[in-house]
């Protein structure tokens, strides 16, 4: 049969069926309204650490319309605890890295004690949300406050308060990896950086928070759950396991989802509690998270503290890097070592680092659990490495771009073995890309040479303009699998069903473009169905920049199988040899004889069982094939960001003048949607660099628990972003694609911090932490004043 032609792959087609998102007509969990539905609200701990005493629910139950109140004690016999983490550990990784994994198992409602402000303590069901919240306020609860541990370093001290009963210390997960001989390399070098970097705690803040609706069909006891999740299949498995139900009796639907970004990749207490209550009460139950709850119950992200030593030669080439870091888990870490190990696996970036040692330790504190957020450990790694590169440049009076050039892996060295294991257990091997060229494109886009030339003059006139570069590589399209079922129905349409679950990425469009090219159709002739466990038996979900790689490849695999069958049916009907047939416009025809053709619709109606069947002997009915793509390992995307900023040194404010991204995610399916992904990621990264911060006081109270103090960047804070795409195809999948969902968010903290250090270079500031608030900028400048006063004495 004919090779795939690229008629739609690579075209900036506007997203299909997306008008509903613009007009507010999407169907989100909150839009699911069922007859006789009840509403839940949760009582959440106001204490960071306390023993739970008597709980008095009398007054709450007396409120008109309140159906019931459940506490940890009421459910302990009936809902089993969560696993210590939802991370799946491949054997080669366990054997190669030998991590320590000893997480506590959370319960759906706190039992005995609370571990953070926001932990669910009781749940109320009432006729409406207002009364449910009134009842929550009416619950009387006695707490015996316990000492609180907020700082991850203090958490490691001997005698520190233990977050979890029954543990010996607050270390939950840890690992270390090494290549080369770091001790020897560091010992031999006089030029060294010793720095401490902090990447603070912030969160994804999707437009739509979490939400769950559960309904039990009264006669069949079939449970249907709508959840704002990235992982419907995992949610189904967990509901069945924790409520002791048969999986086949549980259906989970992820309808339109208003953003996920990572925190919706695992299963939360409410996703078990709401189905439990629907089963108990025999009525549909709805719970929609409000924003105040979101800040104290949906996972936070990042929060790492790095101590590094880095040796380099006089040319600026890195000889060795040691990084010991802490990750502040909060009370739980539902994704285990995902973030921490990602940090280690991405630390080297696009550079040749002969000796490397990384150890990561995840510690418990009395804070909200920490889990992956767009980038998942990579922004932290990139912040560390890219600040190091700029510090080396400063030490050696070299241009930071030049130091990068001297350390880059060269295109002719691809594929490049980086000498450590990825978390899928396979060796990290950069499969394709041209790192020097990516940087050239970004620097050209920013007018780097001209900016550098103008800088002295600008400084003389009192303008502190700085340029910051940040490079990264990203392992994308991680396993363990994703599937696609491809089917042709009686109307001749191609229907793609997958276990991935879009929450704003534009899967409907991208998958339709891929299928259209594979089948010689237009994307409008393809339907994409996802986010429903009833439609395909296995699914991972959408996270980790993986769906285009894994689902795209699965569509490719399933289509190849189905085409084979389709051609056999067509050959039978047309009395031709399958090798002489071709596909175009929804028809199969004999090459050179376009009138001898049969349509997909006719073929679908022929490939049925029974009297209408026109199948050749021995061929099973149905035009359908399912393929599960199991990538051996990830494919490596890369990018370079350049930020240009101006600092008002009197009041410490930073203005972004320009932001440039040169990005290589392999073959692009839809450049318009790719741009959208980069824009969104950069906006979130700008938030991380300059505005967003989840700060706790010493009592474990969150100081930024609403949008009044949690500052998301708005349209005025995000400049026009210039994007340049490079396309180095991946050799690891049939489409040559790499993932790009997270990339935009990975580099901005590093690029903007580098730009700040550059802008203020006359003051030699130590930009080792974010967010870069006006307060911090003035502090950095004041340090210089203090230093120069000291040296004057």
């Amino acid at each position, binding site marked *: 049969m004919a090779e795939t032609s690229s008629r739609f792959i690579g075209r900036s087609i506007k997203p299909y069926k997306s008008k509903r998102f613009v007009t507010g007509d999407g169907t989100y969990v909150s839009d699911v309204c069922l007859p006789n539905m009840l509403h839940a609200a949760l009582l959440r701990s106001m204490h960071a650490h306390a023993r739970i005493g008597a709980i008095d629910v009398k007054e709450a139950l007396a409120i008109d319309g309140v159906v019931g109140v459940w506490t940890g004690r009421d459910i302990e016999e009936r809902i089993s605890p969560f696993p210590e983490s939802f991370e799946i550990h491949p054997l080669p990784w366990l054997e190669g890295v030998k991590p320590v994994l000893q997480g506590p198992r959370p319960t759906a409602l706190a039992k005995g004690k609370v571990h953070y402000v926001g932990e669910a303590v009781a749940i109320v069901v009432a006729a409406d949300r207002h009364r449910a919240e009134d009842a929550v306020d009416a619950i009387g609860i006695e707490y015996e406050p316990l000492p609180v541990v907020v700082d991850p370093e203090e958490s490691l001290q001997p005698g520190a308060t233990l977050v979890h009963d029954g543990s010996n210390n607050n270390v939950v997960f840890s690992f270390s990896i090494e290549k080369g001989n770091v001790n020897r390399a560091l010992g031999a070098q006089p030029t060294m950086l010793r720095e401490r970097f902090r990447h603070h705690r912030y969160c994804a803040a999707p437009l739509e928070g979490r939400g769950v609706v559960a309904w039990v069909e009264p006669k069949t006891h079939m449970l249907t759950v709508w959840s704002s999740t990235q992982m419907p299949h995992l949610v189904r498995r967990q509901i069945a396991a924790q409520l002791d139900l048969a999986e086949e009796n549980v259906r989970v639907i992820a309808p339109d989802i208003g953003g996920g970004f990572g925190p919706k990749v695992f299963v939360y207490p409410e996703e078990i509690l709401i189905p439990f209550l629907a089963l108990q009460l025999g009525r549909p139950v709805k719970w929609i998270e409000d924003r105040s709850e979101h800040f104290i119950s949906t996972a936070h992200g990042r929060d790492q503290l790095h101590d590094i030593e880095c040796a380099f030669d006089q040319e600026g080439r890195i000889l060795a890097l040691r990084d010991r870091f802490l990750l502040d888990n909060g009370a739980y870490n539902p994704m285990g070592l995902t973030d921490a190990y990602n940090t280690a696996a991405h630390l080297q970036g696009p550079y040749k680092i002969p000796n490397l040692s990384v150890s990561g330790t995840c510690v418990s504190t009395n804070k909200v659990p920490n889990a992956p957020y767009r980038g998942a450990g990579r922004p932290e790694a990139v912040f560390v490495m890219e600040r190091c590169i700029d510090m080396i440049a400063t030490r050696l009076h070299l241009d930071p771009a030049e130091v990068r050039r001297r350390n880059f892996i060269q295109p002719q060295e691809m594929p490049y073995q980086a000498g450590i294991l990825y978390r899928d257990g396979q060796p990290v091997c950069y499969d394709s890309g041209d790192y020097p060229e990516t940087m050239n494109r970004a620097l050209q886009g920013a007018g780097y040479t001209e900016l550098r030339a103008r800088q002295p003059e600008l400084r003389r006139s009192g303008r502190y303009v700085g340029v910051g570069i940040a490079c990264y590589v990203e392992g994308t399209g991680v396993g363990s699998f994703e599937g696609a079922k491809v089917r042709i129905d009686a109307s001749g349409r191609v229907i793609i069903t997958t276990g991935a679950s879009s929450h704003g990425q534009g899967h409907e469009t991208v998958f339709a473009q891929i299928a259209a090219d594979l089948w010689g159709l237009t994307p409008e002739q393809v339907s994409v169905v996802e986010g429903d466990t009833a439609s395909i038996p296995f699914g991972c979900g959408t996270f980790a920049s993986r769906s285009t790689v894994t689902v795209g490849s699965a569509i490719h695999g399933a289509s190849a199988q189905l085409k084979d069958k389709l051609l056999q049916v067509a050959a039978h009907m047309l009395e031709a040899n399958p090798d002489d047939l071709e596909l175009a416009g929804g028809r199969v025809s004999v090459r050179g004889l376009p009138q001898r053709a049969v349509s997909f619709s006719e073929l679908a109606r022929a490939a049925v069982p029974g009297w209408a069947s026109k199948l050749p002997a021995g061929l099973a009915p149905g035009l359908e094939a399912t393929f599960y793509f199991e990538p051996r390992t990830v494919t490596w995307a890369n990018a370079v960001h350049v930020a240009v900023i101006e600092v008002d040194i*009197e009041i410490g404010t930073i203005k972004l003048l320009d932001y440039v991204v040169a990005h290589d995610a392999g073959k692009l399916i839809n450049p318009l949607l790719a741009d959208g992904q980069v824009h969104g990621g950069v906006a979130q990264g700008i938030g991380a660099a300059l505005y967003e911060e989840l700060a706790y006081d010493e009592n474990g109270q969150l*100081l930024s628990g609403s949008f*009044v*103090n949690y500052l998301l960047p708005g349209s005025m804070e995000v400049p026009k972003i210039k994007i340049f795409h490079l396309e180095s195809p991946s050799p690891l999948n049939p489409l040559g694609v790499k993932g790009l969902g997270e990339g935009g968010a990975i580099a901005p903290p590093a690029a903007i911090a580098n730009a700040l250090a550059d802008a203020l270079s006359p003051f030699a500031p130590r930009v080792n932490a974010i967010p870069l608030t006006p307060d911090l900028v003035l502090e950095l400048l004041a340090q210089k004043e203090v230093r120069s006063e000291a040296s004057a004495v």
Partner: protein
Amino acid sequence: MRRHGLDAKILAGGQSLVPLLNLRLTKPKILVDLNGVSGLDHIRETSAGLRIGAMTRQSGVERSAIVREKCPVLAEAIRHIGHLAIRHRGTIGGSLVHADPAAELPAVALALDAKFEVLGDGMARAVCADEFFIDYLTTSLRPDEILGEIIFPVLQPSSGYAVEEVARRHGDFAVAGVVAVVDLDGEGKIIGPRVALFGVAPTAVRARAVEQAMIGQQPGNELIRDAAALLRDMLDPPGDIRASSAYRKRAAAVLTVRALTKAVQLCHTRRLS
């Protein structure tokens, strides 16, 4: 209001009250909605000054030709409030009565010695701006009173003015801000300087020491810098996650220099034209 007293809350534009209700931070038993009440939405020029009805939307004041001509600093300050959609709903009276110390309007009222026409049980009384703002989110309005009008003085055509603020993001409440108005006499010496700060104390505050230091002086960089330096002993701003106390103090001084410099420049320009 007389019947329900503290149990009742006035709903004006709702730009502060509705979020507070949503967060369950305030739980009034009764809401009295002024949006259907006539006679509270107007801008009139009188011999006493510009009389602006308390329910006049901020965007209406911002765009009013008469405000721009007679009291342009008021329009300039409103430009800094939130975003356009917020100013379309938000009322001038609502912002003044809410008395957020980081809001622009109380500082303008204070700087210009605006008068507040307060309506009570069949009675009206006038309150000066410096007696209206008592404390953090607290005014001298009694539980049974509402604000009817605010009277802003008409500025001289030659007056220079400026509003400078630093906010973490565009449209946020300021972490520090200043309203400055100055005029120059025939010899180019400063007359009637007015400086009010916001975001740096439990209420907006007049920087009278700064004003005193400038009266009758020839304006210049050094004069302005020295005058603004007097703020150092005057301010003890609150610190929070948006900005520390030290930051606010420093920013207030820097912004005061900038605002006064701009105001003097504008004065020169307007005198020439």
